[in-house]
């Protein structure tokens, strides 16, 4: 009896562990805390391209760089430092803040010695989830498969001196004891140029453009309240990050306010509220939007793509693009935004792309792109 129970308990423990080993994982562990790796003997061998890819990406996810780099073919011609920088980004870009949260891979084609995989990477970033699709080549080396790491070109900026005409506005607040009537610096004059409400999926979207008509910078927030037929407010939302909040004089920004749960059929009226306040601001950096064009991407989605060109001498760590799309009557029919994962170095370009809903592709006749930015230490 005693021996039987002993064997049963040991066998049951081992069996349960084995079952768990092959079960799908739960909701996952916390991100970016523990970077352990599988105990010796529990890492699956890279004897298929899929497994080799998964092993590398799992170690990248856990930031076990040495182990991940073991899965990279020596023929890649990249050193470990470049490999790590490819994943962790540089210059305080969005990628440097991001964590690889998950991935899905599928083979594009495979032979006995070589395979091509398309990987969809799911990143967790400070500004929300980001997806990236990358293609990898794998090669058989002995009885294991290894990833041939593509060499990524990083922008190199030559040494140069860029003269800067600093232009910024500071704000001096009057003291509380100031005489009544003396504290009379008016808030910037900001106006909503257009507003359009459309149904989007199960919810509705209110969008348009807002302009700073003043001669000083304005910090702008657009709020919208949807009202039903009885005049009762159903919901109130704000433009959040679908707007350029700091508008220089005469600058126009698209805005979009999402009501994900409110069908447009329930909405009788929309109350717009634009709040503008005086803030300290700077006119720099100037970012140009080059070669804008609408075209389908590799996955068949319609995107507005182009290049952002940093005309200033300071690094823009996280560029953000907000684009408004117009129909042939000049009405704003959609507003979309996207973040650029790599930093925009001085006098250099980075590509961007924002998706246009398939249903609107035929309607879009024109577009306007505004670039928003986050620079470390200058927020």
């Amino acid at each position: 009896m005693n021996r039987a129970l002993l064997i049963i308990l040991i066998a049951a423990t081992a069996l349960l562990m084995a079952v768990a080993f092959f079960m799908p994982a739960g909701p996952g562990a916390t991100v970016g805390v523990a970077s352990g790796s599988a105990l010796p003997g529990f890492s699956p061998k890279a004897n298929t391209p899929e497994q080799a890819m998964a092993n590398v990406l799992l170690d990248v996810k856990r930031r076990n760089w040495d182990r991940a780099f073991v899965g990279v073919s020596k023929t890649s011609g990249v050193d470990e430092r470049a490999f790590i920088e490819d994943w962790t980004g540089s210059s305080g870009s969005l990628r440097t803040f991001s964590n690889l949260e998950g991935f899905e891979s599928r083979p594009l084609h495979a032979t006995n010695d070589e395979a091509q995989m398309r990987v969809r990477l799911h990143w967790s970033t400070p500004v929300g989830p980001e997806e990236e699709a990358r293609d990898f080549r794998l090669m058989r080396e002995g009885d294991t498969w290894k990833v041939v790491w593509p060499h990524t070109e990083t922008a190199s900026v030559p040494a140069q001196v860029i003269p800067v005409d600093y232009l910024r506005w500071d704000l001096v607040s009057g003291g509380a004891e100031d005489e009544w009537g003396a504290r009379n610096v008016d808030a910037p004059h900001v106006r909503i140029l257009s507003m359009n409400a459309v149904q989007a999926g199960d919810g509705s979207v209110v969008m348009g453009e807002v302009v700073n008509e003043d001669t000083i910078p304005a910090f702008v927030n657009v709020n919208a309240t949807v009202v039903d037929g009885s005049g009762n407010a159903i919901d109130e939302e704000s433009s959040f990050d679908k707007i350029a909040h700091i508008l220089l004089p005469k600058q126009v920004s698209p805005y979009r306010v999402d009501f994900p749960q409110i069908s447009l059929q329930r909405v009788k009226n929309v109350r717009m509220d634009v709040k503008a306040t005086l803030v300290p601001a700077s006119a720099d950096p100037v970012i140009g939007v080059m070669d804008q064009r609408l075209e389908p991407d590799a996955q068949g989605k319609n995107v507005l793509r182009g290049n952002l060109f940093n005309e200033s001498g300071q690094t823009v760590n996280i560029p953000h693009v907000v684009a408004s799309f117009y129909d042939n009557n000049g009405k704003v029919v959609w507003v979309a935004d996207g973040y650029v994962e790599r930093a925009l170095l001085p006098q250099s370009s980075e590509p961007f792309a924002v998706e246009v809903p398939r249903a609107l592709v035929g309607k879009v006749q024109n577009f306007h792109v505004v670039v928003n930015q986050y620079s470390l230490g200058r927020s």
Partner: protein
Amino acid sequence: MNTAERYSRPIPLLAIVLVALAVHGPLLLMQLPAGSFDTNFHIFFASHYAHHWFNPWNEKWFAGFSQTTYPPLTHQWIAIFSNVVGLKMAYMLVQLIAMLLLPVGVYRFAKIWVGERAASYAAVGSVFLGALAFLAYQAGQLATIASVALYLNALPYFYEWMTEAQGRSLVKGVAVGLAAAAAHHVTLIFGVVLFAGPVLWLAWLDAREERVAASERGVIARAAIFGVIVALGVGAVLLPYWISIVQHPIHQMPIPHDSRANFLLNSITAINYFVIPYGVLILALPFILMRGCANRRLRPLLLGFWVTFIFGLGGTTPLPRWLLGRAYEILTFERFTFWATLMAMPIVGLLAMELLDRFRDKAAVGLALAAVSTLGLALAWLTVNPYRPARTPDVKPVIAFLNRDGHDSYRYITLGFGSELAKVSTYTDAGSVDGDYNSARLLPEMTSYGSAQLTNSKFYGSAGMASLRAMLEHANRYGLKYVFVHDSYYEPLLTFAGWRKIETFDNGETTAWSKDDVPPAHKIESDAVPPRWEGLLWGTLPIGVSILAIFLEFLLPGKRRLPVLMEVPACAEEHYAV
């Protein structure tokens, strides 16, 4: 007294308690748990009781939540002691009491299974448990420790009542059991199966094999009576808790926790949740298994230990997920490891006894080294584990900011503050939409995503950031005007979402961000506000049963021996074979 005599006697209980005091007293005086994950949470709850004893509705977190969602006993005792020694030292004092009660409980619990000498070794061993140090100093799970200490003290009365039918055992067992429930509900719920189940099985076994005077039917009947009284008592003592859980069952999205990971696939979680809590006990696992199997009387304990052990492995086996269903995603599993180590202690006591009998001084030195190194490893892990915060923010300027110039008429959140959020909340009058207690959250911006505190959003990946984003989008709705940032990770989102940096504290380590168009906070209507009678009940019954249990311990002194005396031999199978 020669060496043989010295080792053949049990260690007196008072000496064991003094050892516990000597080991943990200085650590608590040094306020070592102050940096743990949950200490500030417990102090925050206690602070509310200190100011509003009979009103469990707390406006400071989640725009208002009910503290009836967490059993109040330890918090109320901290609140009482805080009037004399302040909140932090009151926490340490209550933690110390729980840690002194624990070896007493282990001693009394172990005596159900093994002889007095082995039980005394088990109790000494429990002082040095890695799991205890882990829970007290790293996790800050005061209520779990206090509850299990009380629970272990209640179980011998349960056994006595079943086997001897003494009324005083019933009364004391029920009172101490209710106090345990008032300290921590999860311990009680799982303790019924994992701790009380084996004790009931043992009582039945002892009755069947006539080691006690009771009949098998009598044991079962008395167990049922005990169970019914305890169930009714727990129903009454924690009635506001049950009402709140029925009204607002936990429907939120599962929140990831590393204790649910597969330890085989992540060495760090394996170290944190297995190696550190068990320490040198890992070497005793084969003995625990073999001796538990070999001895008929220890088998219920072994099976209880095994189930608890498997649960403590979290996602390393599928058993907890299969048995617990949805509750698996709500519970954390480090407490099961703690319970498993406690359940192992009677058998470990036997191991110590046999080693001492055989190797005398050498064994004593070895066992002492094993105990100290287990505790030492857990304490060392406090400073090297990857879960510890990289740097702790200085919360004083944040508190000062919130408490001046009417800033407390708005709500706030912190980002990158970890458990220091609760410290800010304790000492400011302003309310937050965030909070450090997942089960009390009702705001949809928090329950609809698989993440816990907003202050730790980034550790929950996309789900965490989506939750934070949803909350920031509704800043105007909640009067959320101020965000305090101690991690530049969050700055891009705040910048793009229209928040502006307005102040820096602590040489720029912490920054305050504000949004201009946010109106002052107003009361958020909630159907979770407990009525006055619940507040009265909550303020009287839990603390009342604990005081009753203390009085009963003194008024009704127990017998000095338990019915079964056994120093289990190494091969006892034949001895008890039927």
